[in-house]
């Protein structure tokens, strides 16, 4: 690893607790460090301040880190697999599957499906089912480009069905679905953080084993094969990890836009390398930093206006993606 990479990664690592601190304390209600300490070690649920820390601030922070990192990693995997800087974690259509499941559930009018646990369950099932569908296709397609096209078509198809569902539903159900689609880091419960963290760590863990084949993959699929990389198996593992990470985030947060698209590109530009060890670490850190920053902004705006997280990630992310496109065409 180059010196430049080391320095940047260390800076990012140091920034993480700094931004985390801001994230925990910028909320409208003032909390003291005693509140934080007690919330973790001497918890008493009758104290509103501690309650806020445990039930609201901590889950929100952890979710921001997990979601930001996961989406960035997934985006990186997709961009290397398809050799396309505009590929994001949702490009395989897995997210569309989660969306469709949630749409079917909320627009069915059955109140169970609109509940916190209902939405999570639906999104997970949707992501899983579509993950398998995409996996199935990946066994038959000749190359990754075909798979990309299949994914995009799946995405279009499910979008069309979701639109249809929206037109025939009542205003109330529609509102639930629409709000889910805006993304939220606040729906996650403290009790769910445990399992989320486990799968997050699993996803990262297995991603490390992909570093070597990903490095070779930049040469193209044929060249990788000739270097002994089992491309077909690699494709499968990448899809599984992407589905796991992106599906996890979508299930607990709804679809969060632009992070998976912008951050991997930012990393490439910042680190100027194709070395996936550096890129992986970079995406983990920068993804988390980015989403925490966006959520700090959301909290900062709270006294004036309640803004969904997607609004912020889009406002920041979209211009950046345009910038990437322009730079590439230059």
């Amino acid at each position, binding site marked *: 690893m180059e010196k430049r990479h080391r320095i940047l990664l260390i800076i990012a690592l140091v920034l993480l607790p700094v931004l985390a601190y801001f994230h925990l304390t910028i909320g409208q*209600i003032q909390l003291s460090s005693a509140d934080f300490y007690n919330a973790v070690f001497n918890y008493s649920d009758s104290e*509103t301040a501690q309650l806020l820390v445990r039930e609201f601030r901590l889950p929100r922070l952890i979710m921001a880190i997990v979601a930001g990192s996961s989406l960035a990693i997934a985006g990186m995997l997709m961009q290397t697999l398809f050799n396309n800087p505009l590929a994001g974690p949702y490009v395989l259509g897995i997210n569309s599957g989660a969306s469709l499941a949630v749409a079917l559930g909320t627009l069915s009018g059955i*109140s*169970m499906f609109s509940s916190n646990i209902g939405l999570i369950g639906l999104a997970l099932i949707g992501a899983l089912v579509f993950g398998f569908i995409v996996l199935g296709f990946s066994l038959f397609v000749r190359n990754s480009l075909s798979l990309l096209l299949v994914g995009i078509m799946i995405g279009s198809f499910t979008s069309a069905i979701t639109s249809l569902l929206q037109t025939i539903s009542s*205003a109330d159900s529609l509102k639930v679905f629409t*709000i889910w689609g805006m993304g939220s880091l606040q729906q996650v419960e403290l009790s769910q953080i445990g399992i989320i963290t486990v799968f997050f760590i699993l996803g990262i863990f297995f991603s490390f084993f992909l570093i070597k084949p990903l490095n070779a993959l930049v040469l193209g699929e044929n060249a990788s094969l000739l270097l002994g990389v089992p491309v077909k198996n690699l494709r499968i593992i990448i899809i599984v990890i992407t589905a796991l990470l992106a599906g996890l985030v979508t299930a607990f947060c709804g679809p969060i836009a632009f992070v998976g698209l912008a951050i991997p590109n930012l990393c490439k530009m910042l680190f100027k390398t194709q070395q996936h060890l550096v890129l992986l670490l970079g995406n983990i850190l920068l993804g988390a930093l980015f989403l925490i920053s966006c959520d700090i902004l959301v909290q900062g705006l709270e006294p004036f206006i*309640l803004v969904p997280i997607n609004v912020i990630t889009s406002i920041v992310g979209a211009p950046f993606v345009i910038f990437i496109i322009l730079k590439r065409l230059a």
Partner: protein
Amino acid sequence: MKWKSPILFFSLLIAVACGSNSTYKKTISKEGKIIEFAEHFELIQDSGFVRLHILDAENKSIKFKAVLAKKVPSSLPKDYVFIQTPVKRMIALSSTHIGMLSKLEGINSVVGVSNQNYLDNKELIDRTKSGKAIELGDEGMIPMESIVRSQAELIVFSDFGNPFPHAAQLTKLGFTILPNVDWREEQPLGKAEWIKLYGYLIGKEKESIKIFNSIKEKYLELKQEMKLVSKRPSVISGNLIGDIWYAPNGKSYNAQLISDAGGEYVYAKTEGTGSIMRSMEQILSENRSTKFWINPGFKSKQEITVYNPKLKLVPAFQNNQVYCYSARMNYFWEMSAVEPHLVLEDLILIFHPELAKKKTFNFYSRIN
């Protein structure tokens, strides 16, 4: 002394004559207006017909003008639609419309409803089942053919700002489309007063006035009693959708009901139209000592917890002081608008049970 008797006689005569028409006279102001409280419609007695004005929800400009009469008047004022009364076939798309018609025993004039699942009125459910009234679907999706099939004279829909679908074609075919803005009324009596609209439409003017006056008296009586109460418990209303808690603003219909029932609405000092939005953190910190939580929109504490586990942190929830009309939701949506005095009774029973005359609920129940 001889000239005193005729004067006395005529005075008495006039007094009696005025007395019998006292109800009618009280409701007609100098300009012939029939409406006291409602701010979004006007009924004005003119020579030989009644003018109906529906006022825009936001700026109160007149957006719909109609003339109600048994026959087309010789000179129909410009831009006024003629509605021949009594209307015998009407499409009523919202619950409030149905509730008001039922109070007037005018359900037999309903030939179209939105969705049978939202109905509570038994007579109307039977009519829908037997085909006398057609199920038309949600407003955005009503097929024109269904409307034509209903052979309605009048379509009453809740106007939230968007025009009724296919309005131009339907008007050409002879349907009259009446925008109902009762949802916008902030005064409970103003909302209930819309019963007069239906009264005038279906030829039961006097009944509608009589019914409204009775409701008005009962309501104002209760309100006056509660004005004298000094200890007012704090109340929060509304619920989360996603991350945002939507609560009525301080001037709204719900806020007024709470206040008239002797409650202290926590957000009584907010301004503006529409709901106010709060984050869950704000709700928790601003309602640490709020006694009651009304209108969460669910039937049980279990449902609420499943919906969003964070809601069980609301102190009123933990103290079992959550109340809602969820036992019979459709019934509430149909009748609460036209019977605000019954809603007031319920709220008084919640906030000041020791002062309530009736010890049973009309609409509400405690959420367990």
